[in-house]
């Protein structure tokens, strides 16, 4: 079968565009393995003269310089990022999934009004709250702590609406039947609703984990102690000081982006379908 020129052209355009799009990420990985200083040679090298781990060694390993321990604090930042993203995700799910279900299926006074307020509040940019929030957290003594980073991420208005939207598709008859059989509300939620919601919960978990991992402005504000920095905050701090160090910066970028990129690639189906589910308002 001969291919039409139009088919060839369209496919080539897609391949070219995709190549251009992922080129920066591929180049980031390549440069991170170049020997130090090589990337500033002219003409700009596209391939390492030899594959080297020295940037990762420099970035990740603590060493003694003039009698003092020195490192870029990327390993602690990696640990902080994983811990904060994991805690935010677990607590976020525990808080928002039952609430989303309640807003969809349980009748209670004030539900419609609360729902309207939640939807309207999506217009308010989070940054408006940040300055007073910093002062409140200072009073509470949780500035410069995990709690200070995590707590605001738990106010998952979007997550509640997202779960509610998905829950509306569950037929009332199923829930009512269980009620007539004498099941408690908690039992109905855990044994009937939750299994049906599980794909949505996976999607939401992915959104929450990636959101927390990539979050920047609030951790930058609330964390002053370098040992508590998350990866984006640590990388930004290094980038503002070591701007000339191309290979080192690319290694830092790889450490920050690769874990979530792999997570996304492994679970892309959940992510992309969730994205479309979330864009439909009810």
């Amino acid at each position, binding site marked *: 079968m001969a291919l039409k020129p139009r088919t060839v052209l369209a496919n080539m355009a897609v391949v070219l565009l995709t190549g251009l799009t992922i080129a920066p990420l591929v180049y980031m990985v390549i440069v991170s393995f170049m020997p130090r200083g090589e990337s500033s040679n002219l003409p700009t090298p596209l391939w390492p003269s030899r594959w080297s781990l020295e940037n990762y060694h420099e970035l990740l390993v603590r060493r003694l310089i003039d009698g003092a321990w020195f490192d870029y604090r990327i390993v602690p930042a990696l640990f902080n990022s994983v811990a904060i993203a994991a805690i935010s995700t677990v607590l976020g799910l525990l808080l928002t999934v039952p609430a989303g279900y309640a807003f969809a299926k349980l009748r209670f006074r004030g539900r419609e009004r609360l729902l309207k307020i939640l939807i309207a509040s999506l217009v308010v*940019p989070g940054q*408006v709250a940040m300055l007073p929030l910093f002062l409140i957290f200072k009073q509470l003594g949780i500035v410069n702590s995990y709690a200070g980073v995590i707590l605001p991420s738990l106010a998952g208005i979007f997550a509640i609406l997202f779960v509610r939207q998905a829950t509306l598709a569950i037929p009332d008859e199923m829930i009512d039947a269980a009620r007539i059989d004498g099941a408690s509300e908690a039992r109905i939620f855990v044994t009937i609703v939750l299994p049906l919601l599980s794909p949505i919960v996976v999607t939401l978990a992915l959104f929450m984990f990636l959101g927390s991992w990539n979050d920047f402005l609030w951790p930058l504000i609330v964390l002053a102690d370098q040992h508590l920095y998350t990866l984006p905050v640590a990388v930004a701090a290094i980038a503002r000081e070591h701007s000339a160090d191309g290979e080192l910066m690319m290694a830092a970028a790889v450490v920050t982006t690769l874990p979530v*990129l792999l997570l996304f690639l492994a679970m892309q189906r959940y992510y992309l379908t969730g994205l479309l589910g979330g864009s439909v308002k009810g």
Partner: protein
Amino acid sequence: MTRQERAAWVFSAPVLAIIALVFVLPTTLAMALSVTDYSIYALADWANLRFVGLGNFIDLFSTPLFWRAMGNTALFAVLGVPMAIGASLAVALLLNDATVRWKPLWRVLLFAPYVTSIVATAVVWRFLFNERSGLINRALATVGAAPIDWLGNPHTSIPAILIFVTWKIFGYNMIVLTAALSVVPQDLMEAARLDGAGRWTRFRHVTLPAIGPTLLLAAVMSVAGFLQIFAEPYVMTLGGPAQSTTTILYFMFDEGFKWWNLGQASAVAFVLFLMILALTMVQTRIGRRYEWL
């Protein structure tokens, strides 16, 4: 209270309490803060706090850097929204072509930049934009163009950051528009083709009305997104050169957390909020009036 009602409150009260503490309360306080002279002195001792009425706003409106930041942010939005939405739409239309194979694979790869950290990829793009050894100038050199000092020249700093931002975010609306394109009525498309409508006419009169609402929603959200640009200049240009990339949020961050003028910074936050609110209202109205062209 019924059993159902009690369960509902048990399920939703914890998260509502957190929303009240970290969102409703501080948003309300932001308004209060913006009419005080809250600064590093008040941070040390509340007794130093004074009510200044609209003083912060008057000060703000006579600060040249504030207007510079407003202008820069407006430029980001005015150039960035068509650039990003245009890219999303172009790629979505291309991917929608029946002859393209392995669509799911391309979709995932094209979307990948969206899930990466802004800070990390901004570091990568700053490296790509390097005047002497950056890959972009090397590519330009192959077609004979002179090297551009992308991030070091106040005239190219915003376009450079916008190229990065477009690369980073176009995948999101590409996915949203792909979904919208899949429900464009095919019988209508076929009828138009039989009537001899060309490619552009079909796009203009069949495709565009069908995806109009989605496009409008994408535009609203993009405007709001561009008004909130912060991490990109923070990492790539430090707001420079010559303050050409100082955005509203960058200005607010410096005012609030570098100089600790939290009263003044709250006034900035309030202005940002009003702008996003106004834009959202204007765009919903346009959408309602025309029901998309």
